[in-house]
């Protein structure tokens, strides 16, 4: 690890809610931009070797981000994130659903509600994300839609590596 910034990830199985908290060594405005501007978002949203490709980004209440996770083989998994509320540099909320390449929402696939909060202290910006699912098993579908094959293997490798590293400490 290259820093000691906060990162925690917890899941409340009862409420089917995922909590992700992370600090960044950057000013609030910059982190806010990184989450809300297409050209920055696409640089980091997809864990490598996946790519994030945003086709439509309309950051306003009622607006949407229509984007794809593109696999190394070029396979595209499209999603629509609708912006349901926005308080600039403080928080925004989205409703996330899967779609086809023509932006038809797939109602059979799981959707989720996201709440993202931003705050800065001493030049460190903290982002707190809450993701509510209808069903915890939906996560499995998301995993299959987003990150099949290669990525899971990379993760397994990473997990082994992390285990080895933590044992050395």
């Amino acid at each position, binding site marked *: 690890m290259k820093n000691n910034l906060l990162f925690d990830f917890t899941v409340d199985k009862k409420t089917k809610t995922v909590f992700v908290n*992370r600090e960044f060594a950057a000013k609030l405005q910059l982190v806010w931009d990184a989450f809300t501007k297409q050209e920055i978002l696409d640089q980091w949203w997809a864990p490598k070797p996946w790519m994030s490709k945003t086709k439509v980004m309309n950051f306003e209440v009622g607006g949407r981000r229509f984007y794809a996770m593109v696999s190394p083989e070029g396979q595209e998994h499209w999603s629509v994130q609708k912006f349901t509320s926005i308080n600039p540099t403080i928080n925004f909320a989205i409703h996330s659903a899967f779609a086809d390449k023509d932006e038809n929402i797939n109602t059979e696939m799981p959707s989720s509600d996201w709440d993202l909060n931003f705050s800065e202290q001493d030049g460190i910006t903290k982002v707190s994300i809450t993701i509510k699912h209808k069903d*915890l098993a939906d996560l499995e579908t998301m995993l299959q839609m987003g990150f099949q094959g290669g990525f*899971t293997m990379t993760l397994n490798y990473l997990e082994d590596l992390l285990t080895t590293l933590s044992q050395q400490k």
Partner: protein
Amino acid sequence: MRRDIFQAIADPTRRAIITLIALQAMTPNAIADNFNTTRQAVSKHLRILTECELVKQEQQGREIYYSLEIAKMKEIDKWLNQFKKIWESRFNQLDDVLSTIKKQKK
């Protein structure tokens, strides 16, 4: 056939049963004493949990004891850990992007 571990933990009564038998193996009657439902309802939950391979049965004399398959519960945590990894790598990439942007501004 139920084989989905998430079905096992989707119901509040089943979660309570899991918590109970995590501490010690129990008979269906002893488990049922903890709930305001019928013995039949508890049996049904135990059957689902068994089908999900989350609990195991053991015959002791005339009684059947139910206990938790700890390893199976750990699978859920392991599975959830994949999502942690996704966010982790996503955010590590964002660290790089942020630091690049900061340098460009200087």
